[in-house]
């Protein structure tokens, strides 16, 4: 079924072509039948008439014909138009293909005319283009015989009289009619298929545009509505899609505004709290409170980022990924965290730098938080780049590895509750990397600890 085209113009074209072909085949059948009947009639009628004439007026003589007949050698069959003459023996050469339909037709005609016939033989004989007899024929008849290359020989045995022999022209091939029909079909195809193709393309092109727009729909793309084109039905569909798109964008805008409002509304009391705790006398208490507020703020940041990721405001730019990872690692090291990274060569990539920084930071943050430190590797290959963050922590039970990407998952059983975090970090990192066309994989290292690997296409 792979031969069948899947698109609309293709299917329409194939359908119309098939229908046309069937119609033409039927037409061809009828034409062929008519032609054959006509050809039979053209042979049977004159030949029968001449034989009837010859048998009924055996003595009528035409001097011209007699003269011509005398030129024939004994083994030669006379051409038609020559007055048939009776012969004693069957003059038909052996091995010719007989035509029962012609025999039947002539027998009927003769019987109708009251002539008793004991045997009718009709057969097709090939005429070579250099047959000597052709020279003796009138030019137009010789030409016709040369062209068709066949003649019909008819012999009739009349009891008591002997054999009458006649020859008639016979076009054995149906090629000319075939050629006509093929030409006709091609002309029909051109007349019918071209408009069909044009019409279906007119429908298909806007549909394809629509499909591409629907598939490539990304809230971050600031492309306008699709142009309405094609027939009315398609225009209506495109208009409906454009409206849907507008509504979706409006909802996403609304979501952004709402998240912004939530962020603002939560940050303000958090900020007030942060200012107030400065009056707490106990340094230890104050530090702990400040840490808690920072953590809440970080979570709030993650929630906002995660929710806003559908429409990232940051453009994709050319970035040195090696320097990016290095910068993130350096920020951790500046804070005194044990994070190791072996510098690698410049690695040019197209991505959103702030978001990718955040994804890498979240992975390292998890490693530092749960694994006590991190070792970061950057491995470029031909088609992808891998950023691996390894820690020496407890790892994750294999059956729960898939869960950790879900927002708000934290593996209480294996990780210390006291270290905080609600598992948003990984979900956010995952969302960022996926938006960039990549993937994050978590694996337990054979020698202990967890390895988080970001794979990005190059």
């Amino acid at each position, binding site marked *: 079924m792979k031969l069948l085209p899947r698109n609309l113009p293709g299917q329409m074209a194939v359908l119309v072509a098939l229908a046309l072909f069937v119609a033409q085949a039927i037409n061809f059948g009828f034409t062929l039948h008519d032609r054959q009947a006509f050809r039979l009639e053209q042979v049977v009628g004159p030949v029968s008439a001449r034989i009837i004439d010859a048998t009924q007026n055996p003595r009528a003589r035409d001097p011209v014909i007699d003269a011509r007949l005398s030129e024939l050698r004994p083994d030669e069959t006379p051409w038609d138009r020559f007055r048939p003459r009776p012969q004693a023996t069957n003059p038909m050469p052996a091995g010719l293909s007989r035509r029962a339909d012609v025999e039947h037709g002539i027998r009927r005609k003769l019987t109708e005319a009251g002539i008793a016939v004991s045997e009718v033989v009709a057969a097709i004989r090939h005429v070579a283009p250099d047959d000597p007899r052709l020279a003796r024929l009138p030019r137009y008849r010789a030409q016709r015989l040369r062209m068709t290359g066949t003649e019909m020989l008819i012999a009739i045995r009349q009891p008591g009289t002997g054999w009458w022999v006649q020859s008639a022209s016979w076009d054995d091939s149906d090629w000319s009619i075939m050629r006509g029909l093929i030409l006709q079909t091609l002309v029909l195809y051109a007349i019918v298929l071209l408009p069909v193709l044009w019409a279906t393309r007119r429908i298909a092109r806007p549909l394809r545009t629509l499909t591409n727009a629907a598939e490539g729909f990304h809230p971050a793309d600031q492309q306008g509505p699709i142009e309405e084109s094609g027939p009315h039905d398609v225009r209506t569909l495109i208009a409906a899609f454009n409206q849907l798109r507008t509504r979706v964008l409006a909802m996403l805008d609304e979501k952004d505004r709402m998240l*912004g409002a939530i962020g603002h509304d939560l940050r*303000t009391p958090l900020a007030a709290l942060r200012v107030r705790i400065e009056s707490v006398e106990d340094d230890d208490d104050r530090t702990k409170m400040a840490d808690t507020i920072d953590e809440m703020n970080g979570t709030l940041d993650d929630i906002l980022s995660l929710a806003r990721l559908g429409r990232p405001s940051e453009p994709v730019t050319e*970035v*040195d990924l090696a320097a990016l990872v290095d*910068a993130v690692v350096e920020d951790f090291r500046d804070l005194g965290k044990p994070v190791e990274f072996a510098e690698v060569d410049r690695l040019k990539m197209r991505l959103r730098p702030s978001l990718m920084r955040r994804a890498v930071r979240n992975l390292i943050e998890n490693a530092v938080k749960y694994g006590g430190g991190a070792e970061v590797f950057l491995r470029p290959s031909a088609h992808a780049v891998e950023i691996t963050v390894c820690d020496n922590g407890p790892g994750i039970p294999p059956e729960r590895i898939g869960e950790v990407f879900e927002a708000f998952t934290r593996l209480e059983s294996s990780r210390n509750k006291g270290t905080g975090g609600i598992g948003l970090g990984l979900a956010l990192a995952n969302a960022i990397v996926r938006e960039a066309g990549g993937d994050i994989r978590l694996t337990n290292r054979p020698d202990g600890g967890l390895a988080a690997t970001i794979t990005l296409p190059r």
Partner: protein
Amino acid sequence: MSGLPHILLIDDERSIREPLAQYLTKQGFRVTQAGDAEGARARMAAYAIDLVILDIMMPGEDGLSLCRHIRASGDVPVILLTAKSEETDRIVGLEMGADDYVVKPFSPRELATRAKVILRRAAAGGSRQHAPDSGSYAFGGWVLKTGERALVDREGVSVPLSTGEYNLLLALALRPRQVLTRDQLLDLTQGREAMAFDRAIDNQVSRLRRKIEADPKNPELIKTVWGGGYTLAAEVTRL
């Protein structure tokens, strides 16, 4: 008139404004409060204000518009309080001519430190740094974009910097061909971010050199001045 530096604190949120005013007063500032842009304008007219601390998100005329007004009418330094840490706000705020900003929730201690740094700078030079964080600085084939905090090379590829590296490079780029001692650099880079820079300036410099010098062993851009410190040996063009 007391000799204390006079801060005008503008925030529509009383829950932040009042305790912050209290804290800043305790830290040795004279604080006048305003709840909106209108009140702020009135107090600006009435007092000789040394520093404005201004919330961006306010009902009515917002902080950015007020900031622009303050910048247009005088030389008073401005610190913005912003609720969002989105990059775009950063750029916009600094293009408006603010001297610095803090993201809510901020540590009042850090705010006080920055206020002191800005006041000291203003008192020392008289000529205030013109919106130090805004715009882009081009030198030796590199462009340091402050809005995006990115260093961009000739081919347009952005080379991310750590916070420490960025602050150090910005400090150098703002004072081209000046010799900056390690102490000066520490002073200039610290307090700009909540991060504490425990590691020596030398370390940051050598890391920066590896990123921006053609031959890090033979630096052409960040040169060591014997017995002095470091200098950015290149023309810096503000874009």
